[in-house]
């Protein structure tokens, strides 16, 4: 082999890997369109439903808590307090429940050789992230417009929390895609463990209010930090005692790493059944 051949091979490999990237991008965008059609195009109202669900949720919480408490734990607006908690939580929760079924919901499309299982996950991640952001803008924007003194936003914590929450959802979703197929029992266990997260993640309370020994236990849940971080972007005065984003990132990237490993080791399983 002359040096020239070596360059040629190298170029060919470069071209091939570029071709792969182009294919992945094409497939992900095709899947994105397909998922959007399935999720929003199949029923009347379409995209509105994505908004209506969290809006109704915040409304119910507001009515219920206004009846039993005089002021929310932070600020003066019940809707803002619950909406910041609920939407921060949704960056994880809506993500995980949508990504969980990514491969399963696109099983038949995996019979096309250029559709890789990971593409279905990537497409669902982007669609869900964009949807939750839109929900956040509309719901929080509406609430802020109604307030006499609108909150002063600091964007960095808001975006950081949204990103971290969605990464947690993606990592756990990746793991679940494999584990749900491998161990049907795990699916049951996951839903039992995941459901109460809503209650203990600080959507309608502040971890700061909990006395020390118990607070440390609550803070073990990475979602608590996501919600705290999100709220610091809306409440200037919020001190967020015990907030540790490093912990959340460590947790998120460990699940991502583990999820990727599982995913690439199980490609045959994911394609077949």
């Amino acid at each position: 082999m002359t040096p020239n051949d070596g360059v040629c091979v190298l170029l060919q490999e470069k071209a091939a890997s570029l071709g792969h990237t182009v294919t992945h991008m094409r497939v992900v965008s095709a899947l994105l369109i397909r998922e959007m059609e399935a999720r929003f195009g199949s029923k009347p109202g379409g995209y509105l439903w994505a908004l209506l669900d969290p809006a109704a949720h915040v409304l119910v919480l507001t009515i219920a808590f206004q009846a039993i408490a005089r002021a929310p734990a932070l600020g003066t607006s019940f809707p803002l307090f619950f909406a910041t908690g609920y939407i921060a939580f949704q960056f994880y929760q809506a993500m995980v429940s949508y990504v969980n079924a990514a491969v399963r919901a696109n099983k038949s499309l995996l019979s096309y050789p250029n559709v890789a299982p990971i593409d279905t996950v990537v497409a669902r991640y982007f669609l869900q992230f964009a949807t939750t952001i839109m929900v956040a803008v509309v719901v929080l924007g509406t609430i802020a417009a109604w307030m006499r003194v609108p909150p002063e936003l600091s964007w960095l914590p808001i975006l950081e929390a949204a990103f971290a929450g969605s990464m947690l959802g993606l990592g756990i979703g990746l793991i679940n895609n494999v584990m749900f197929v491998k161990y049907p029992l795990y699916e049951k266990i996951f839903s039992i463990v995941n459901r109460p997260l809503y209650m203990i993640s600080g959507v309608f309370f502040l971890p700061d209010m909990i006395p020390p020994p118990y607070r440390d236990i609550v803070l073990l849940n990475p979602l608590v930090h996501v919600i705290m971080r999100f709220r610091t972007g809306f409440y200037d005065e919020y001190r967020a005692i015990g907030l540790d984003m490093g912990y959340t990132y460590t947790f998120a990237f460990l699940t991502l790493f583990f999820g990727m490993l599982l995913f690439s080791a199980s490609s045959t399983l994911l394609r077949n059944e």
Partner: protein
Amino acid sequence: MIRLEQATKFARTRGISKPIIDGVSLVLERGKSIGLLGRNGAGKSTLLRLIAGTIRLDSGKIIRRGKVSWPLGFQGSFQGTMTGEQNVRFVARIYGVDTRELIDYVEDFAELGPFFKAPVGTYSSGMKARLAFGLSMGVNFDYYLVDEITAVGDANFKRKCRAVFDSRLQDSDVIMVSHSTTTIRDYCDSGLVMENGKLTYYDDIADAIRAHNDNMKER
């Protein structure tokens, strides 16, 4: 050209492990239409999926020169909740071909009428086969992998398949699985016989069919 190098794949379910191909090396040259023969459960469909690249070998390599289609079966690669049209559009997007052109071609070929805009889950197997066949013929491949698809459908559909295939086969090749030796003899000029994890290539399809029939007599 499709080249298998020491290609090995075992089917594994619940502790049972059975060879589909075991250390197979062979070259399939361009310009040959190949019929794939083997007994029930020999792994013909799995081999097609290996060639397509949807599943991976346990060891060894498959090298493909040219564009290889997805394995074309009447079970379909279709998402049942999507309409026929949406499925076609999806394929156009992932293969980077013109969406409008492909839709027009498939709509015309499959003759589904209003059902083209209905979910594929409501189709009969004949309708699915027409859609699948039209769809793959609308995208240009060098190799078409066909799994029993021509068995479904009425005489009219078979005639149409035949016609479009004949024009496609001018510059494309086919690798076809069918239990009907008549179909195989009709479409293919050479053959591959699968038996106990071994693949044997016959330049003449008649020899392949004979070898296959001998295998069937043994057990």
